[in-house]
């Protein structure tokens, strides 16, 4: 290993590696279902890897493996020692290690999804770990959640409001959620889905756009004397 760059374990300097996408949100909002749906939708066009951080460690990884959406070897589980937010925000070492393990083992990859363990509204990913992040809410948490804001809702690159099919049953007003989210998110996108019943085509389209944007940003004219080639994304 040479000592050319800041971190020979290729820290997130963005050069030539996969886009790292964080998926966070409260317990039960549908992060794992969304991850599975994204793997299903994107598996044919992008080279994928997944890191899960479920508090019961292998549970989410097992769900994904059973779902058959991705080669099980491309799914790694990270234990978070009872503190899911620590592992994605304050001490990201184990997650970065897992992402790089996937890239070393299966690379070049286009997209690595890091799914956080279920946490609270203040949990967001460190920019040292992911390049983009999705925050997943569901309507059963009440339509006031977007108004309450919190870093997850306000700062995520994409807010997904899931389980819209349940809205009538839990008395959630999607219009209110849309309006409140728009107010606190300053123009950043919000998508309403029911991943379980409809899949995640819109979210997948957004992710594909991010991957293309990322590869264009880092493929052309950004060589920085980088010695080795991590490969280039396949364009869908």
């Amino acid at each position: 290993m040479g000592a050319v760059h800041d971190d020979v374990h290729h820290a997130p300097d963005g050069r030539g590696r996969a886009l790292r996408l964080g998926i966070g949100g409260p317990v039960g909002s549908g992060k794992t279902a969304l991850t599975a749906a994204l793997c299903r939708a994107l598996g044919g066009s992008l080279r994928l890897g997944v890191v899960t951080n479920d508090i019961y460690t292998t549970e989410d990884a097992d769900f994904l493996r059973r779902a058959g959406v991705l080669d099980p070897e491309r799914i790694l589980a990270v234990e978070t020692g009872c503190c899911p937010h620590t592992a994605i925000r304050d001490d990201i070492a184990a997650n970065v290690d897992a992402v790089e393990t996937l890239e070393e083992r299966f690379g070049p990859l286009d997209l690595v999804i890091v799914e956080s363990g279920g946490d609270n509204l203040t949990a967001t990913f460190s920019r040292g770990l992911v390049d983009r992040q999705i925050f997943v809410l569901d309507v059963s948490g009440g339509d006031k959640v977007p108004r309450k804001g919190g870093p997850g809702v306000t700062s995520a690159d994409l807010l997904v409001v899931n389980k819209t099919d349940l809205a009538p049953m839990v008395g959630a007003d999607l219009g209110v959620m849309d309006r409140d989210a728009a107010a606190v998110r300053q123009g950043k996108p919000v998508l309403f889905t029911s991943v379980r019943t409809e899949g995640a085509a819109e979210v997948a389209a957004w992710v594909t756009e991010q991957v293309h944007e990322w590869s264009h940003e880092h493929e052309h004219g950004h060589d920085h004397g980088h010695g080795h080639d991590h490969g280039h994304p396949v364009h869908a």
Partner: protein
Amino acid sequence: MTPGLLLLTDSRLPAGSHAHSGGMEQAVKEGLVHDLASLESFLAGRLRTAGAVAAGFASQACAGHDPVELDAELDARTASPAQREAARTQGRLLLRVARRIWPSPALEELAGRLPSPHHPIALGVTAAVVGATPREAGAAAAYHAVTGPATAAVRLLGLDPVAVHRVLATLDLPSPDGLPAASAPLLDLLAERHRRSPVRLFVS
């Protein structure tokens, strides 16, 4: 005392240790640790075995002893593959952050020779880079051997964190002399059972 040593021993150093319980998760699950008294006894036993070994090796690594030789000697002192894996994972992550925080030829050389060193070796070499003494490196390694399990017990058992820190404050640190080989059969058993457990909150 060099400021680098304070950073190196801070549990908030982002080097992945927060997710390692050093056998505590399994000890709690099996009922071996269930209150402050059993916690203290567990930590004291861990400190005079695994802690003493870590202290001796971190100290020697800090003093400039050949890390590859030390690493092989630590392998021979770590019969449990689960414990070897946990030690090497923590060593790799510490080396990664240390190289970014304190870029230096010594750390580059270590990474070139041992990409995943046992944790006490990564700690000892880093301690030397930040200007700590071998004795301080040994103390840091010994503390690392018990602070992680203690914090895990706070999270797993809901113990009073102040009471747990009082326990930590009363433990006698082993003096980091020579290269001890103190073994702990129960830690081996706990580590191997933990690795096979389908439900785990901690890596080790």
